[in-house]
């Protein structure tokens, strides 16, 4: 009995969690008429209260076809997202992994200060650094280019911290053994550090992917040209003529994020957990 109640409570929360996906998945395959009948009251075209069905009554692929054929802006935005996210992830891997290794495995002067700077930075909301980022990007003449999002993103310290936590968990004896066998420091990093810390690197990349794919404040602040906007700024405008296409576009916008999440869920969980408990 107690078990049943707890399962019901848990299931209810779960349903809430996935509700936007259910909503969009049904709406993406409904015709405009069906959608307007359901949510017309919200748009003040119909009376009464809005309603929603879990499955379309007359499923149609029309929205998808129309989205694929008639909306080049959507693909532009999709491509912008891919470019921004890909650029940031590659950069974080290139710069962040060695930095995490240096902080985790060596003692050097100034290390404590750098560590404190890194964790402080990862905890600051965008609003704190907004003005300073703007000033430096302005000086570099990077405003209103994709680089204004990618370059600061590469040096966001969050991924360094996650990888750091995993690198700290590698036993020192392994590294000592390698040194005795004559391995150089770089060799140790590439041959031991990266393979043994792979879980941490992947965790950091999965978390960063979701962060970048859903980025809102940075592109809104630094990109004035709409053709440079990523998909995360795509605000579906629903009216009687395009309701179906808008819902379909929203569904496609969230697919990559949800797929990456599902594929990397274990790493995702490890990455989050690493900030509360040591590996």
């Amino acid at each position, binding site marked *: 009995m107690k078990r049943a109640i707890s*399962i019901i*409570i*848990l*299931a209810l*929360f*779960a349903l*809430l*969690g*996935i*509700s*936007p*996906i259910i*909503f969009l998945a049904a709406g993406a395959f409904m015709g405009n008429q069906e959608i307007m009948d359901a949510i017309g009251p*919200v748009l*003040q075209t119909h009376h009464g*209260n*809005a309603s929603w069905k879990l499955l379309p009554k007359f499923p149609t692929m029309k929205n998808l076809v129309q989205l694929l054929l008639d909306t080049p802006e959507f693909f532009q935005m999709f491509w912008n997202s891919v470019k921004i996210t890909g650029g940031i992830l590659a950069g974080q891997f290139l*710069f962040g992994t*060695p*930095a995490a290794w240096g902080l985790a*495995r*060596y*003692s*050097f*002067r100034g290390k404590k200060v750098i560590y404190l700077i890194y*964790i402080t*930075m990862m*905890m*600051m*909301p965008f*609003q*704190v*650094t*907004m*003005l*300073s980022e703007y000033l*430096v990007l302005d000086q570099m003449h990077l405003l209103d280019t994709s680089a204004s999002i990618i370059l*600061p993103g590469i*040096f966001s310290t969050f991924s360094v911290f996650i990888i750091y936590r995993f690198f700290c968990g590698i036993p020192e004896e392994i590294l000592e053994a390698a040194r005795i066998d004559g391995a150089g420091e770089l060799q140790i*990093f590439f041959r031991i550090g990266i393979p043994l810390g792979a879980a941490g690197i992947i965790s950091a990349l999965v978390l960063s992917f979701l962060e970048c794919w*859903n980025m*809102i*404040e940075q592109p809104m*602040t630094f990109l004035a040209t709409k053709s440079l906007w990523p*998909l*995360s700024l795509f*605000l*579906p405008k629903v009216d009687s003529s395009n309701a179906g296409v808008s*819902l379909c576009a929203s569904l496609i916008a*969230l697919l990559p*994020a*949800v797929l990456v*999440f*599902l594929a990397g869920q274990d790493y995702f*969980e490890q990455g*989050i*957990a690493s*900030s*509360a*408990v040591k590996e």
Partner: protein
Amino acid sequence: MAKGKKMGWVFVLPSFCGVLVFYLIPFGDVVRRSFLNAVGNGFAGLENYRQVLGNQAFRLAAGNTARFVLVCLPLLLTLSLGVAVLLQNLARKSLLKSAYLVPLAIPAASVVLLWNVVFDNAGLLNGLLSLFHLEGKNWMETDAAFGVLVFSYIWKNLGYDMILWLAGLQGISKSIYEAARVDGAGTWKCFLYITLPNLRTVAFTIVILSFLNSFKVFREAYLVAGSYPQERIYLLQHVFNNWFSELSVDKMAAGSVLLCMVLLLFVLMLQRSWDQE
């Protein structure tokens, strides 16, 4: 730890240079500007800070943000702990876990659409309420907007905090529970006298992480309600955005420095709790 003192720097330097160029040096410039007048040439002392602290929009937003945090944190922490404890004893939990975590992956824009349909005056929630003959509200345009924001925050972060709690729960050894059971302690007693005390150190970490995360709810608030939302959900983040679009560099500089100082305090507390683990 290896001896090669130079090696550490070699690994860290490329990343640190980027951090310096894009964040530290410009932030230093912002600190400098916070003491200059609006045109940026005369020394203004603490005038900008006085202006920010006396600014009505800033006060409203600071109050709202504080209230938001005070309401959300206890709610989120207890709910997520409850879910984590219930989930922990379940054999097949991976599917449920995914469902709690998926909101972290869903872009804000996709959520906003649903929220509009749910919380509109003629929306799904009011429709549901009318089935029970309860009076609905215009959720987004009255003080209830605050509730919608709290709901969004919890919806988004429940899974995140649940994972943190689960990590903490895993650290408690099973043998303590077994010993307590043998002595006749029930589920409830076990929770009160074993689980809770053992979670104390990790709880502190989780509180501060959640606090720092609470600033991200701005995304939803902004997308749902725009630059000038209902008064109760006008947050600090809105003030910053609006100063930015007015190009009030002096106010923004002082505001950023103030916010940074407050958050820095929490980061230092977080670091101490990590050291204690």
